[in-house]
Each structure stands twice: as C-alpha cells, then as structure tokens.
C-alpha cells in the first residue's frame, strides 16, 4: 500500500483540522510550527498546502499575525442562492453596492441572441459594484427588457433600490428557470480600477439568464468576480444525514 505523499497529507490534514474543529470565517489556524507537529509533515509540505488554500481563497495569511479562515467570502450555492445580498447576509457579511451607470438601450442582435430579447426593443442596463464588508467583490451588469418591465428605467432610485424587490413586489414577476455559466477571465483596466485589483488578475466571468415559468427572460446578467471574495458550490442532491459536515465543507 502506498504512503500518502507529504503534500497531500498536509493539505488533507489542514482540511480535516478545519472541519473537525468546526472552524468558521475569521478563525485563526495554529502556527506553522504547531501544524507541522500535529500533521506530522515538514515545513515545506505544509507551506505547499497553505499556498494552495490561500490561492483558492479558503485561507488568508496576514503578515506577522498568522493564517485565518477567509473572513470575507460569499458562497453562492447554485440551487439555493438567489441574489448577492441574501447570500452575503446568510454568512453574516454586510453587502452593499454602488451604482456605476444606468442606461436605456436599443437591443442589438447580439444582446437579443444572448438574453432572448426582441431585436430593436428597449432594455434597461444597470451596472453596479457589489461589496462585502466594504470590499469590492464583483461588478454586475444586468439587462432587463422594457417589454417585460415597462417603466423600470424611470421610476426607481437604483442607488437605494433592490432589483429583486422591484421585480418581485412591484411587477409581480418571479424567477423559476435559468442558466448560469462560469468561465475564467482576466480583469481589464476599467474593471481592475473598480475592483481595486491589479490589471490582468484572474477573475471569474459569470453569465446568467433568469427566466419565468413561461421562459420569458427576467434578467440577463454578466458579472466579473474577484475569486478571493466569492466562491461557488452546487448540490444536485443532498445527503441529509451529513447535512452539517457538507455545509461546513462548502462554506470553507
């Protein structure tokens, strides 16, 4: 039987430690020295594992202070999360957003094909930076058809207003179906400025279409996401007898 390689023993060891001790966002990990003793691995192996966990945003290392479970990270669960605010609040994070631009545009063939809008009809475009605990986490560009939501571009103060509240409560329209596609990209200059990251940083590019029961488009959204502050999980089914473990694992 093969021995577990040192790097894997370290990586699995840190995961096990976090789960068994039910560690949560903001909790501090033991020092490197203590971790090496606990997990019976070398400094080199441990550092390799910590590097993997910090680069994927599970942990953050603070100069001179140690290693912590990332305190500012939103979890988007495809089957459960409906919007940025509720996903943030569910984790005790404070969501906020600032308006970059609003405009009303004529739907091009390209937008029509993607969003399933009518060519030449009008759409409202809402561009916002979403923050968690005041840190910019993503840029969101939402397109809403004025065919479906007449007047939505005129009546509301989008510095204050929640798009979902307006859609649900003012228009009585609800999301039932949709598609979310995720790919990897690099931030351009303008996005980097808004997100306070270096130009060319790896970012998640998300494109989502949300539809009603009758497959009418409610919104078409493109987001540029800083991976350090946002991650995804999916549960196409759920083992109820393992609920707590799986939920903690997903949150980390």
């Amino acid at each position, binding site marked *: 039987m*093969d021995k577990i390689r040192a790097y894997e023993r370290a990586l699995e060891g840190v995961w096990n430690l976090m789960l068994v001790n039910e560690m949560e966002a903001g909790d501090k990990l033991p020092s490197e020295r203590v971790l090496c003793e606990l997990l019976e691995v070398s400094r080199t192996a441990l550092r390799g594992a910590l590097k993997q966990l910090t*680069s994927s945003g599970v942990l953050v290392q603070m100069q001179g202070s140690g290693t912590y479970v990332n305190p500012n990270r939103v979890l988007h669960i495809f089957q459960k999360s409906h919007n940025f605010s509720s996903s943030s609040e569910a984790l005790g994070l404070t969501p906020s957003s600032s308006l970059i631009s609003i405009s009303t545009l004529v739907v091009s063939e390209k937008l029509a094909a993607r969003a399933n809008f009518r060519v030449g009809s009008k759409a409202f475009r809402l561009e916002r930076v979403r923050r968690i605990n005041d840190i910019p986490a993503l840029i969101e560009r939402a397109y809403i058809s004025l065919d479906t939501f007449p007047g939505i571009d005129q009546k509301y103060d989008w510095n204050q207003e929640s798009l979902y509240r307006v859609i649900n409560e003012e228009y009585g329209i609800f999301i039932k179906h949709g*598609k979310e596609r*995720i790919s990897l990209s690099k931030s351009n200059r303008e996005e980097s400025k808004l997100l306070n990251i270096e130009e060319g940083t*790896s970012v998640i590019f998300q494109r989502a279409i949300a539809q009603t029961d009758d497959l009418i488009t409610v919104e078409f959204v493109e987001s540029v996401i800083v991976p350090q502050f946002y991650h995804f999980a999916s549960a196409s089914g759920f083992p109820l007898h393992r609920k707590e473990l799986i939920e903690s694992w997903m949150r980390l």
Partner: protein
Amino acid sequence: MDEIVNTKSKPLYQELYDVLLERIERRFYTAGSKLPTEYELADEFNTTRITVRNALDILEREGLIRRIQGKGTFVAQSWNEGALDVRGGFRELVRQGRETPSVRILEHALRSAGSFIALMLDIQPEDTVLYVRRLNLVNDEPVSIHSTYIRTDIFPSVEEIDFSVFSMYETYSMYEHSYAYANQKLSVVELSAHDAQLLNVHAGDSTLMIEEITYDSQDLPLEFVRSISSPSHAGFLHTY
C-alpha cells in the same frame, strides 16, 4: 468581401468582433471548426493582426472560441446550445464538437483513506481507498487533471479496472452503485509548477478547481474528486 468600415463610433477591433460574432451565430463558422488564422483574417478584413487579436481576445473571453497552442483557434459551442446538464448541478461543459477525448493515467495506487478523505467518504481513516490521478486530453491536447479517491469497501478489486478504457461512472454502474448526484465546490486556484507543465500552461496561472463528492441513489458517497482544468477549457454550466 466583408470589410470593416470604421464608423468612428466604435474601435476597429469591436467592428471586427461584431462581424466574427455574427458569423459564429449564423453558423458560417460552425462549432468545432477551425477559424482562419490571424494572418488570413487580417488579410480578409484588410486590417492589422493586432486588431484581429483584440477581437479574438473578446470572443475567447466570452467562451465563443478556444485557442489551442500550436493548433489554432476553434469555434466553441455557443453557451445557449451548450451541453445540457443532464445530471443536475454544475459540471464541466463538454464541448465535444469533432474532438477526440482520451485519458492518461498518471498515478494509480491503493492507500489508506486518512482523516479527511474518510470524512468526505463516510468511512474510517484506516480504510483503503484507490487513488487515481489522470490527465484528460482532447485531440491530444491536455484539458484537465482529476485526482479521484474511490472507496474499496463498496468497490472491491476496483484497482483492477483499466480507467483508460472504462469511465469512472461506467465502473460504478457495473458495481450497481450508479451515480445519482454530487456535492461540489468550485474555486479558482493557482496552478503548481507540476500541474502547469502537465496542462501545458505557464506556472502560476490560475484556473478553476472543482472538489466533489458523488453519491449513489442511497446517499452513499462513492468517490471524492479534485479536478483542475486548463484555463482555456475551464467552464461550468448550471441550469434550473
């Protein structure tokens, strides 16, 4: 001949982008087919290669084309007609087109589960799991690396199965523990030098990582998998 006319309202590369996008959407360039080279496109549209490259950059970013080093630029399936998620949950978009997939086994060994894998698979740390690390290739181009930990208590002698012939899911079905659903985590991770080399990309590049537990219909965990994709192939689709 299509030509880009600079109307001054849009940069040239944007105009070219619109033309190329239109060709892809009209299926003049079909999914899986190879685009003309940058040089040919520059020639056709009477513009510079820089303009062509900028236009292709946006198409690539939007997932409409894929550039494969040393092979050229290929049209991906548009996301609206992309592989439907038959299993529910997100999973790798398999944009097969006319491509030939193959598998190379990198490691294959029995090991003790250890605490973490035991937790994930609902077994004891001293139980044996089969560890399989494999490289998936499409048209001989490396696209992803999968590290899989398989339970040997419900899959006895699973180490004798040739995973370059049978898929994992086929194997589980043969043992009558068919895949039913998965719990998955998706994050962005920096590639190690070793993995970067296997995927033929630069060390330090970031890519998408999936960590996943799959279950059969009795809620029995079958395997734990950690997968990373080459950045240009990294994509996931969730439908509901």
